[in-house]
């Protein structure tokens, strides 16, 4: 697949052996042979592949700082990488870049129960945080399906969420502080074990910045006490509309479930075949609702949810009677991607956010597109917060199919924006949705974001070619702010 990436600097490519030698001064872990580079040539969006110039695996903040400073001084691009599970190509290397893998930052530094936080290195996996504190009854709330593998650094860069983000928020709501290194080597500590430092909220703007503003070398994350009781219910519907309106009703009645997920029929069947979670096969949409709180509250809320479901013509329901059973309900949902991997040679997972009440509308449109492109699609939604993940299935052996799948995905996202939503809920823009940014933002909006980027990275060396369009689209579409007949700042680059 041809993907436009920033043009490689021939001088840098020619200087490879010198650069590698220099990098070895800063860290013992430099990889530069073709075979060594291969594992780093792609991430979770594996339709795109590119080997970097070299890979470094620094072991401490000083090494990170020295490497970045060196690259900055020599105009070498740097791409940060966590576990490489990202789904938008955020850690896709560039031919002339140093890929900085944070894999050796794999230690939890402090468990601080008094301040209810954990201080960790960014390469630690999401799940490892919970595992480290669960014996004291605590857990780390954001739970992406990839939590076994993905790193906290990657979570911060993508502002990752999970099925429990509805009640407990995404990464941004659960990180208290970070240590970051800017491209020029400056080390900054932002936030910490206290709340709300005054001054510009660098912590907040760093969340979801896709590795473009700095490299995270440490994070302080909030841990929560496990709820007293948790139960989940499976609810089946004969139409996606009914499932959607059930979700809206639950939310507007003031119930805040811990999680609320919808799967459509193709996905129910695929996951049931794959994970045997015990889902009904004869419903059009399956809703999983999880409630937590005190025991009696959970009982009362489950009942309320079931009443609301009944009013919305639910055809099936089953409540969990043990934690094991509850985990089984989730097992299917969390295996959704793998299940699609079994029924199709390839798939891409889209990630748009829409107003909750547009769920049925958007799904109807996706089904139309599925016919138009003649590609299968299965859908799951973090329904409570309107975040949908259509999984588009295709066969990459047929070169035309990838292009079709990409166009299909782009059409879905454009429609999300059209109905009042956004291009990405939790996977980020990366290279995948870069050129669609103009669907949401005009030239002014994007220029503002680019000038913020410049404040952090004036040479545009850190993860360039990601998030922002490089095909001059918005500018060409002529949406430039015209002021009294004159373009403001005609000398500003229109990227």
């Amino acid at each position: 697949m041809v993907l436009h990436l920033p043009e490689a600097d021939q001088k840098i490519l020619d200087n490879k052996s010198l650069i590698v030698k220099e990098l070895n001064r800063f860290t013992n872990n430099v990889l530069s042979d073709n075979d060594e580079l291969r594992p780093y040539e792609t991430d979770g969006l594996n339709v795109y592949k590119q080997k970097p110039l070299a890979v470094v695996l620094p072991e401490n903040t000083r090494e990170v700082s020295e490497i970045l400073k060196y690259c900055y001084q020599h105009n070498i691009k740097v791409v940060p990488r966590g576990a490489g599970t990202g789904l938008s190509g955020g850690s896709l290397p560039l031919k002339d870049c140093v890929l900085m893998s944070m894999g050796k930052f794999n230690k939890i530094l402090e468990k601080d129960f008094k301040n209810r936080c954990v201080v960790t290195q960014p390469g630690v996996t999401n799940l490892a945080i919970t595992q480290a504190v669960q014996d004291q009854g605590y857990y780390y709330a954001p739970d992406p399906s990839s939590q076994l593998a993905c790193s906290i650094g990657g979570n911060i860069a993508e502002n990752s969420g999970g099925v429990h983000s509805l009640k407990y928020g995404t990464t941004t709501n659960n990180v208290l502080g970070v240590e970051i290194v800017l491209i020029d080597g400056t080390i900054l500590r932002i936030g910490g074990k206290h709340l709300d430092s005054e001054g510009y909220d660098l912590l907040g703007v760093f969340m979801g910045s896709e590795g473009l503003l700095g490299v995270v070398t440490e994070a302080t994350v909030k841990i929560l006490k496990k709820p007293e009781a948790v139960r989940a219910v499976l609810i089946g519907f004969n139409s996606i509309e009914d499932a959607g309106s059930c979700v809206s009703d639950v939310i507007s009645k003031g119930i805040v479930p811990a999680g609320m997920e919808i799967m459509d029929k193709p996905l129910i069947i695929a996951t049931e075949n794959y994970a045997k979670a015990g889902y009904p096969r004869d419903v059009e949409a399956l809703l999983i609702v999880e409630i937590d709180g005190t025991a009696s509250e959970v009982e009362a809320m489950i009942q309320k949810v079931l009443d609301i479901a009944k009013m919305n013509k639910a055809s099936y329901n089953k409540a969990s009677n043990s934690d094991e059973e509850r985990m089984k309900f989730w097992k299917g949902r969390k295996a959704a991607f793998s299940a699609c991997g079994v029924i199709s040679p390839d798939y891409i997972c889209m990630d748009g956010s829409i107003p909750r009440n547009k769920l049925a509308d958007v799904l109807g449109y996706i089904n139309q597109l599925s016919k138009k492109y003649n590609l299968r699609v299965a859908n799951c939604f973090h329904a409570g917060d309107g975040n949908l993940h259509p999984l588009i299935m295709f066969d990459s052996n047929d070169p035309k199919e990838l292009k079709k799948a990409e166009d299909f995905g782009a059409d879905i996202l454009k429609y999300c924006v059209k109905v009042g939503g956004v291009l990405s809920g939790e996977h980020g823009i990366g290279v995948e949705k870069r050129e669609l940014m103009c669907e949401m933002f005009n030239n002014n909006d994007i220029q503002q974001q680019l000038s913020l980027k410049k404040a952090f990275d004036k040479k545009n060396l850190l993860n360039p070619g990601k998030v922002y369009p490089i095909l001059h689209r918005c500018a060409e579409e002529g949406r430039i702010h015209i002021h009294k007949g004159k373009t403001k700042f005609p000398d500003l680059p229109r990227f």
Partner: protein
Amino acid sequence: MNDIYSPVNEKEVSDFIYECHKDSSPIEIIGNNSKKIGRVIQCSKTLCLEKINGIIEYFPEELYIKVKVGTSLEEIENTLDSKNQTFGFEPMDLGFLYEGKSRGGTIGGVVACNLSGPRRFKIGALRDHLLGFKAINGSGEQIKSGGTVVKNVTGYDLSKLVSGSYGTLCALTEVTLKVLPKYEYQETFCLYGLNHNEAINFFSTAMDTSLEISGACFYPADNTRFFRLNDIKQNNSILSLRVEGPKTSVQERIQQLRKIFGASDYSVLDIFQSKAFWNLSKNLELFKNTNEIVCKLSLPITNASEFLSKFSNDIKYFIDWAGGLIWLSTKDVETISKMRIFSVKNNGHLTIYKSDDNYRRTEEFLTCGDTNFKILSSKIKKSFDPNLILNPGKMYAGI
């Protein structure tokens, strides 16, 4: 007094700022001028956003409201109230602090100051509830960011940056905020006669449960007289724990608090008194009409005891956010300097909320111990406002 310009629409704001940008002429931005917060600044022009007002759209079932920035907090809260909804972050009404009476100001001011109430430690700050905005940057350009949905990783999250930026990055014109259904019921469990060390320990015990406490504050004995509520025992220190949710769940959780803390002297505030209590606390009525300097100090919980052992005799204070926040006042400028040093050393933050104009002119408003942070802040300011014309110097001298 300089000229006050009150545009009525976005375009007028844009044109005005564009002209000022061309002449590098500094502008002070105000809502309805209710908050004397930040450093005193010298500007030849004042931009008042009060007339950019009105509710643009409110979709209770989608849990958001989109308003123009000059809309009063009161109008918005009344609108939400009519649908039994509210802001989760409990915006503070600083009118009591500055003028001795209610004056919530405009929503733009509330957002610019990131004012977040007692529920903050559980539900996030105001900035976590700002879903999107429109604004005019320092070059006079209209910009926007975010949207109306809660999950959004589409470009940098500028909403975070603009909340709490005190009008130094852009003139907000429109904000979209997340709203929540009101809790059906609440009660507050009050414990009496503790000292501050005991209070911090009790907070810790309460927070180490699954009881979902949504307010946790402590007032030392001398500072409780303004709580004129039937079930508050006067002349004692008060530690209060708020529990919210469905009625049966609240009562069950209060029952559990009785089991844990029942050996101490306590009382329970019913829903009406509980609401009144937290309103008085949230709006800083402890410091109503004070002439002292009022500060907000955010600290790691484990540093609060040490801080209070050092300073409690020199300040009037109460603790909020389960030990993470101390609101305090003092006349003594020296004490503030010492507290600033303490806060920097212990990874906390001290902010001056109220002081006389002389102090506001000469001293820092925020407390920043990190030069690199300031350098980056200065670059960020320039990335929005290249000629430094929007509220220049309001947050830090020179930025």
